């Protein structure tokens, strides 16, 4: 087991390294250079040569490419992310301010989605081909198909029309006003949770549950006279859950995508909103950092899934 863990960890390092190289290259293949883009780009508002030179100096763009890269990489490794131009603040501080909100909404969405998805999948499988089965599956496909931002807007629309409620701008951290915080963030979390995060595990859970319920050991459990509840929860669900867990790996990118649009709809000042603002303000250091960190997060999530899988199912070794 330990050698597996260590091997898997070592394998992740080149990927993480590759993520930084790819992001760095993408941000550098810009037509023209970043300094020109930041000072107005195509709009014709390009600054004077002196201004450009000054900005290049500040961004370190006049150094050789590899020096820039290693400098940036070293910064990331030491959590020194550099400065945002638009916000005029250290990016580490910015992240510390914005990340808790996004993390909270993301985690709450994940919990809502997983609970609904897994239980919905089990019910649909047990009542296969019944009205409930079709209803639940229909809801799952609907969740996958309806864009998150539109369901968010519809939720707000309904609330505005019936309760005269408008989403509160800004945000109070959980530790300052737990109730107020939850009352505000439960809606975006619900919207994220009811989309892909519910639909994908639901369909997977239903499929594996159907398979498992036909296994011999379920028949054995029945023959032993176990109660149906015990059979379903302890024998069937436990086994059916294993493949569903691998989905965690694809959950993270989906959640990040959901956060970007949902924060925009609900006016929440999180990391996704920061990324959109940064693109509009041509604040490239922020864009570069957010893309890198989401890449890292996904690599780590996949690593976690592999390790978890190896632990849950001892047959799996790479």
């Amino acid at each position, binding site marked *: 087991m330990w050698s597996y863990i260590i091997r898997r960890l070592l394998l992740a390092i080149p990927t993480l390294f*590759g993520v930084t190289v790819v992001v760095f290259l993408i941000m550098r293949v810009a037509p023209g250079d970043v300094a020109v883009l930041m000072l107005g780009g195509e709009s014709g508002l390009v600054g004077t040569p002196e201004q450009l030179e000054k900005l290049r100096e500040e961004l370190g763009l006049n150094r050789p490419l590899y020096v820039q890269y290693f400098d940036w990489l070293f910064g990331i490794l030491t959590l020194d992310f550099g400065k945002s131009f638009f916000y005029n603040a250290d990016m580490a501080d910015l992240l510390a301010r914005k990340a808790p909100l996004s993390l909270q909404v993301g985690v709450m969405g994940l919990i809502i989605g997983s609970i609904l998805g897994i239980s919905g999948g089990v019910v649909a499988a047990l009542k296969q081909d019944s009205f409930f089965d079709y209803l639940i599956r229909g809801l799952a496909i609907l969740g996958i198909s309806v864009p998150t931002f539109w369901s968010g807007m519809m939720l707000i629309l309904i609330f505005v029309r019936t309760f005269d409620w408008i989403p509160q701008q800004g945000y109070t951290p959980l530790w300052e006003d737990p109730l107020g915080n939850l009352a505000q963030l439960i809606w975006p979390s619900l919207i994220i949770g009811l989309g892909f995060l519910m639909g994908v595990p639901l369909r997977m859970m239903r499929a594996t549950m159907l398979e498992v319920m036909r296994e011999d050991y379920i028949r054995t459990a029945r023959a032993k006279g176990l109660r149906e509840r015990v059979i379903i929860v302890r024998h069937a669900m436990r086994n059916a859950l294993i493949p569903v867990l691998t989905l965690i790996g694809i959950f993270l990118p989906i959640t990040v995508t959901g956060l970007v649009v949902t924060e925009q709809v609900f006016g929440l000042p999180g990391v996704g909103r920061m990324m959109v603002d940064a693109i509009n303000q041509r604040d490239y250091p922020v864009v570069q950092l957010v893309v890198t960190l989401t890449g890292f997060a996904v690599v780590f999530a996949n690593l976690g899934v592999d390790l978890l899988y190896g632990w849950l199912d001892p047959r799996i070794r790479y």
Partner: protein
Amino acid sequence: MAAQTEAVAEIIGGRVRRNILQRNWILWRRRPLGLLGLALVAFLILMAATAPLWEIIAANSASYTGSQPYKFALDGVAQLVPPSSEHWLGGDRYGRDLFTRIVFGAQISLYVGFAVALGAGAIAGVLGITSAYFGGWVDLLGQRLVDILQAFPGLILAMAIVAILQSFSIEVTIVAISIPALPAMIRVVRGQALSVTKTDYVLAGRTIGASHLRLIFRYIMPNSMAPWIIVVTGRLGSAITTEASLSFLGLGVPEPLPSWGGMLNANALDFAELAPHVIIFPGIALSMAVFGFNVFGDALRDVLDPRLRGR
């Protein structure tokens, strides 16, 4: 398998619907949802194709006489008006006819969807098959790159590409969505091509001295087609969603082009109380399109890949 390969071959020949339906009619008949999806997709294509016609009809019913194309025509009186006999789905915030714009929106969604799915699909097909066929360090390096690209959530990578290109157009949007779509497609094609490359008939082809090109085009490609079709169809819905998300964020198809996502951009909520139709109708169109492509793709996957049947 033979019938399946034949059906696939005919899909490539271009006579898609009739032959799939005929040959796999028994399979399709048991998938009412898939047929519903097919109907929605057909409806969408029809809508996009007849958009100019509807523009004329809608312009007439509002007795529009201006010189601008009706889909762009601003009319102060029609600002945010609710649906009526003049403006069937009401007016948007600039007083443009929402019905006309939604009908034209189908063109944009379909264009982006098919361009991404087929464009990225073609590139992924070439890269996946060559990577599997030639193997060696090219394959190894390519697969590492695929791993790395797959670490980025699609929308985030697309946003970064838009940010760096700093121009907004349908074409930029297509490129921005296509690049993140590549890795998953390459993976599937490569996996299939890899197993085909190891079959006896490819070995036989090699023995009788078939060239690389012949082996790739006549032996490997036709037999790698089914998964390719599945991933390409599966990509249509997500490409349309991503386009809508980008346009919603103001980073995709620019105004005044009638993109469904753009119609829903965040400011649309400001008019929620006054004019809910501005939010409701583009969203319904968008959701129906994505739903149609998704359930059609699911059913097609079931029919083409018997191993996944019932999942």
